[in-house]
Structures are given as structure tokens and as C-alpha cells.
């Protein structure tokens, strides 16, 4: 692109300002645009619905605060759905900050479930370094890898972990993942090696790399992708939260970006035409 074509572009500060307004205004004045569910999200919902009551499942919190706006609503809606269905939740984390992410959700929802007890219906096993090797080792002997929970309570004193020796004793694994280690490693080990159902939620930007695992072999049973996936799940579980309220802002922001792309193209072709006329 020559300098003439490059010039006469909108000052980037205007772009920043417009985008800021596009995000801020819909968060303050809710538009209430419709949300539709997609097949991948319905598959995730179906997995939890079909899991027998009293089953024990792993939810792995493999993200940190940077991905919180997208993955936290998924985690919250999922944990609420599990508690509603009397499914017992074992939390693990392949990312150090995942422990706090899970605790944040649990502390927010536990008052709504006074009958759910820590150690009986929910447990946080804490962070474990090692990525895929940790998952492999969990598949061989869960109790060796997690001899105690994040508070230092012995696994033998936690009723939720009675009879949990490996993946065979689990209903499914759900990975909330913002990168590596994360959902791919869970698929490769928990599903491909040990044959357990695996599902998950990922950030919108990493969804294209994970979607191939949603296939006929059911390496992944559905997928929650980005804020939209979270909002769809909130819709299915009838627990509207921050994902639902954020969809308006995301929609307007996407529209603004599209308008900028169109404007950028018009600008480019107009400048190019002017260059040709001048015989450059």
C-alpha cells in the first residue's frame, strides 16, 4: 500500500472512543437482543441433564482473571446446573489462578444452596503443575496426585472423594480452558485414553482450534465458545447472568468493528482510485 493510500485514515483515537461507547452504553441501557441456542451448547446442556443424580464430576478451572469475563459466567452457570441436578463437583486446576476462580464462583452461589456442603457436594483440590502428565497420572491414581484438598484436608476425610480412584469413577470431565494446559489435554487423556466423556468451555478466540474435537467420535460433547456460549447456556439453564447482559455490548461492539472494516475498505479503494487518476 502506498503512502497516499495509507493516509487520510481515521485517527485511531476516534476508533477507541467509539468502541468504548459501543461497549459501555449497552451495558448501562440494556437493549435485550434475542439469544439463540446452538447445537454445541445444547449438547453440553444435554450431558449434564443426562448425568445421573449423585454422580461425581470434575470441573477443571484452567484459566486466570484475564479470561474471566468469558469463562466465569460459564463456570457459574455450570456449577449451578450441577448443584440443581444433585451432581457432586470436584474442582481441579491446571492453572495456578484457577483455584481462586473456582472459589470465587462457589462463594457467590453457596448461599443459594444451603443443603450443599463442602467436602460432600463440592471440593476444591487446588492447583497441580505438570499439565498433561498430571491428567495422565490422575487417570492412573487420582488419590496419589491429590492426597489432600486445597485446605490441606486429607482425601480420606472428604466424603465426596470416597471411591474415587481414577477417571472410571467419574460422570464426566468439564474443562474451562483459556489455553494450554487445558481442554485439548483433557480430551487427549480423559477421553482418548480413558474413554470418559469430556466437555468444556473456551474463550471465543480459541474456539476454532477446539471445535474439531466436537465430532462423531465425541471427543468433546459440545462446547461453550466465548461469551455467546455462556449466554446460551445461561438461557438453557434459565439463570441469566453477566454473559446474557454482556451480549448486547458484544453485539454492538462487533457491529462497530464491521462498520470500521467497511469504512476502511471504502477509504482504501477511494484513495486507490484517486491515485490512478493522478497516474501514480
Amino acid at each position, binding site marked *: *500500500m502506498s503512502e497516499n493510500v495509507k493516509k487520510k*485514515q*481515521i485517527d*485511531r483515537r476516534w*476508533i*477507541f472512543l467509539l*468502541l*468504548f461507547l459501543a*461497549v459501555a452504553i449497552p451495558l448501562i441501557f440494556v437493549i435485550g*437482543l*434475542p*439469544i*439463540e441456542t*446452538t*447445537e454445541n451448547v445444547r449438547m453440553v446442556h444435554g450431558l449434564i441433564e443426562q448425568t445421573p443424580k449423585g454422580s461425581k464430576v470434575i470441573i477443571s478451572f484452567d484459566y486466570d*482473571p*484475564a*479470561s*474471566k*469475563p468469558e469463562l466465569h459466567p460459564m463456570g457459574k452457570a455450570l456449577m449451578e446446573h450441577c448443584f440443581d441436578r444433585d451432581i457432586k463437583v470436584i474442582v481441579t486446576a491446571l492453572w495456578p489462578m484457577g483455584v*481462586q476462580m473456582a*472459589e470465587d464462583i462457589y462463594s457467590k452461589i453457596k448461599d443459594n444452596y444451603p443443603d450443599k456442603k463442602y467436602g460432600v457436594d463440592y471440593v476444591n483440590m487446588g492447583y*497441580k*503443575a*505438570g*499439565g498433561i*502428565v*498430571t491428567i495422565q*497420572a490422575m487417570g*492412573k*491414581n487420582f488419590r*496419589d*496426585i491429590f492426597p489432600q484438598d486445597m*485446605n*490441606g484436608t486429607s482425601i480420606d476425610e472428604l466424603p465426596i472423594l470416597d471411591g474415587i480412584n481414577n477417571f472410571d469413577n467419574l460422570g464426566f470431565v468439564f474443562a474451562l480452558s483459556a489455553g494450554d494446559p487445558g481442554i485439548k489435554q483433557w480430551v487427549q487423556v480423559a477421553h482418548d485414553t480413558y474413554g470418559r466423556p469430556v466437555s468444556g468451555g473456551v474463550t*471465543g478466540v480459541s*474456539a*476454532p*482450534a477446539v*471445535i*474439531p474435537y466436537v465430532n462423531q467420535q465425541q471427543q468433546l460433547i459440545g462446547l461453550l465458545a*466465548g461469551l*455467546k456460549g455462556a*449466554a446460551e447456556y445461561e438461557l438453557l439453564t434459565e439463570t441469566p447472568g453477566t454473559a446474557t447482559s454482556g*451480549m*448486547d455490548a*458484544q*453485539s*454492538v*461492539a*462487533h*457491529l*462497530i*468493528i*464491521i462498520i*470500521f*472494516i467497511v469504512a*476502511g*475498505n471504502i477509504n*482504501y479503494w477511494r484513495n486507490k482510485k484517486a491515485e490512478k487518476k493522478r497516474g501514480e
Partner: protein
Amino acid sequence: MKRKIPLLITFLVGVIIIISEFIPHKPFGQITGELENWYLIIAGFAIILGQLSLFKVNLFKIKHRQKNWQFFIITLLSFILMVSIGIFWGTENHPGIFGNGETISNTIGTKPFDYLFDNVYQNLQATMFSLLAFFIASAAYRAFIARTLESSLLLVAAILVMLGNTSLGSALTGWLPESLSFLHLPRISEFIMKYPTTAGQRAIMIGAAFGIIGSSLRIILGIERSYLGGE
């Protein structure tokens, strides 16, 4: 000898782990289990190594007054602050060497470590990630230009997916009759993600997997030795 022993260890470990994938019985299964435990212990130490490395690299930059050296002082001070208050007063469920810091906790509402984590660290990380949206918008305006057929196709696909992945897509084409539902933006977006994107991604994934197999074999067989340093 200094190089031959590590090469021999690498070869033996690599071969044992490959064999255990096909014969997961004694003695291979047991040995692999033990090796996995070793890996987990080493991975734990890697965190300490990373912290020491962060300290060393930042100190070096400050000492030699490298460009923007002042920022590295902030990194180090933040690091020391978080580690110190974590050790002194612990975190939410764990006491530190000075107990739980009740006086400070009563003043600020939570333990100092949790206070900084919730009110500083989380927000800073969320801010850094959110800034991407502004840069993407600016970059899209400048770089997403339909110069060729390929870039035009990419542009159209991107716009369809962007619209289809929002509530706006549902609102824009939600009125279409059932016979034209294939034109519904969320469906178009789902189609693009499910077929062309997945096909491309699978090709990349399979290619990358072959690459990993190749480079793993090179390491196991001692052809690739850069991990030993030098050469």
C-alpha cells in the same frame, strides 16, 4: 561423557514411554508411572526456577539501565510485595508465618494477599485482555482490506461469523421464513465454523502432530541436541 549420559537417559526414557503406550503392563506401566511422578516433581520446581529467572532477568535489566528499566523495578517490587504478604499473613484459607493478620484484615475486609489479588491483580489482567478489543478494532480498520480474491473471501467470512456470533445476527435475520432459514446469520456462522474452519484446523492439527512426532524422534534418537545447550 558429559553429553553421552544425558543422551542415553533421553533415549531410554523416550523408548520406555513409547513402549508403555503399546504394552501398559509390568514393568513398562510401572516405570512410566514413576517417571510421571518425577515429571510432576520437576514441574513443581520449574515454578521456583521461573521465579528466580524473573528476578535475575529484571535485576540484570535494572543494573545495566536497559530501555525502560524503571518498569522492571515496578515488576520486582510487585513480585516482592505479593510474595512477602503471602508468606507473612497467608491467603484466604492458609495462615502465614505471622498468623492471619486480623488487624489488617479487619481494616480492609479480607487478608492483604486476597485484597490485592481481588482488587489489583484481577482488574489489571482483565484490563490487559480487554485492551485487545481496541487494538483489534483499530487493526481491522487498517488491515482488513479486500485487495485480492482470497482476502475478500476472508473478509466476508469474518463479517458473517462476527454477526452470527452475536445477538445482533439473530435479530437481523430472525424474521426469515423456515424455507430460507439457511440464510439465518447464526446458522451461516455455525456452518462456517463447523465445516470450512474445522477442515482447515484439522489439517493444521494433523500437520503439527506429524511435526511433533518427527521432532520427538529426533530428540529421542539424539539427532536434535539443542536442549543440551550449545551446538
